[in-house]
């Protein structure tokens, strides 16, 4: 049987690791990619059975929801902001949101906080894009929203793909498009 979770996590890992290594991307986008790369790498280790560290994978997935997706949203919605465009403020945002995640989700067990953060981030991308008539980012928002919904509602579109696979795939496609979109906007600015 195909280990779909390991494979889709591996795909996400490749896309995000590539994004994290691109010096031309915005710091917020690179940091978001880096966080998701770690989470998906731990997912590969976990689901392939090579070196399962499930609690660490869950922890970084939580950081992905509470820090990486909001960073991604900020990079798309307001690329000129301090958080999106400076390493310093991207890290401050990450540390602050990560601290909230540790306190609320890891320690207090309120998972709703990370779920809500991810959903709000994705909705921000979508709504902003619709208002601005930005087709590419609207598509990105929609893909990410479908991924989150598939996870929340446990959708299974194709027999061998689980709902988490759809989340991994939507994140991979969404982030890939965001990077392309970011390249386009960088080129058009220069």
């Amino acid at each position, binding site marked *: 049987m195909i280990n779909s979770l390991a494979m889709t996590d591996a795909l996400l890992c490749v896309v995000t690791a590539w994004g994290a290594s691109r010096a031309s991307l915005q710091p917020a986008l690179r940091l978001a990619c880096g966080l998701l790369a770690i989470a998906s790498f731990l997912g590969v280790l976990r689901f392939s059975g090579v070196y399962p*560290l499930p*609690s*660490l994978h*869950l*922890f970084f997935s939580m950081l992905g929801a509470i820090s990486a997706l909001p960073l991604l949203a900020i990079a798309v919605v307001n690329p000129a*902001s*301090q958080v999106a465009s400076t390493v*310093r*403020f991207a890290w*401050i945002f990450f*540390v602050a949101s*990560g*601290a909230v995640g*540790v*306190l609320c989700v*890891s*320690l207090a067990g309120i998972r709703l906080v990370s779920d809500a953060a991810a959903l709000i981030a994705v909705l921000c991308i979508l709504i902003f894009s619709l208002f601005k008539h930005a087709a590419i980012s609207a598509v990105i928002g929609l893909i990410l929203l479908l991924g989150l919904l598939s996870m929340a509602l446990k959708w299974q579109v194709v027999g061998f793909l689980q709902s988490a696979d759809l989340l991994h795939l939507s994140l991979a496609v969404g982030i890939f498009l965001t990077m392309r979109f970011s390249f386009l906007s960088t080129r058009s600015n220069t």
Partner: protein
Amino acid sequence: MSPIVFAIPVFLLAMVLELWLARRRGLQVYRTADAVTSLHLGIMSQFVGSITRVMALGIYAAMVDKVGAFTWDEKNPATWVFALLLYDFLYYWYHRAGHEVHLLWAAHVVHHSSEDYNLSTALRQTSSGFLFGWVFYLPMALLGIPFKVFVIVGLVDLLYQFWVHTELVGRLGWMDRVFVTPSNHRVHHGQNDYCIDKNYGGILIVWDRLFGTFAPEREGEKILYGVRKPLLSWNPIWGNLMTYRDILKTAWVTKGWRNKGMAVFAGPGWQSNERPQHAEFQPERFQRFDVSAADQASRGLQAISLAGMLAATTALLYFLITTQGMTQTERMLYVTVMILVLAALSKLWKRAST
């Protein structure tokens, strides 16, 4: 029992030794009001820490339990060496953030508020570090470094930093290149232009060399200690709250959300258009905050101040020894009373100088 109980007499003896050595060399490195204030702040941080430490250490312990990825052999020396190196590395970033992010600077500024540089300055510690410090050490919890190892290497890192707060030890050759030494750390406490945001290391100065924040001490340029927005008070409560109040005030009057955010998260040097605070630093015009000449001459006042400080130290030792047997309410009451006593003792100088 807290190891601090054993460290306190050693600290006090070391300060007496430093004072004696300085006198023999004809140097004046201590001023009573400043040193007593440093000790008051240290005593207060221990009292407050006895309550708040539960939070920071509790978070660490819980995170090791929930997320800790690996198991470590506590009997293996390599575990301890690795943990100490990692702790020192994380301390570097915590310390650096403490200088370069205004909100974190508000917690750390207390330690830099002395305009003298002696062993008492090492004890001038914050009481609000628990609010943010724990975040920076989470990577150790994620790796599963055992709680006991974390606490002990943290203590080693902290205790190491005591001896570097002195003007009596000069350059130390190769040690200055690898370790944090008095020479390196004097630069860190200076407010001269070349000293700002330099030498953040705890034990190893190597981190500063790696991340571009190292500056060697300059021959022939006298270091002026302290901060560019001076505390101007002997009150330990005010010492801990002043910068928080400043940030709140600036954020409140500053226009625009972006600028309000900058007031909180930018570096301490960031200027608000609505509330500019920093005049250009002019070393030649710098004057240390001090008590009046009459107070300096008053042996009685100095004796009372020292006696008060020693009584507070004794009360701290008693508290640390007996705290296990106290209820939380008793503990809170004791701590509250002692903070008020320390604030009252600081009024000795203020009243005498006005």
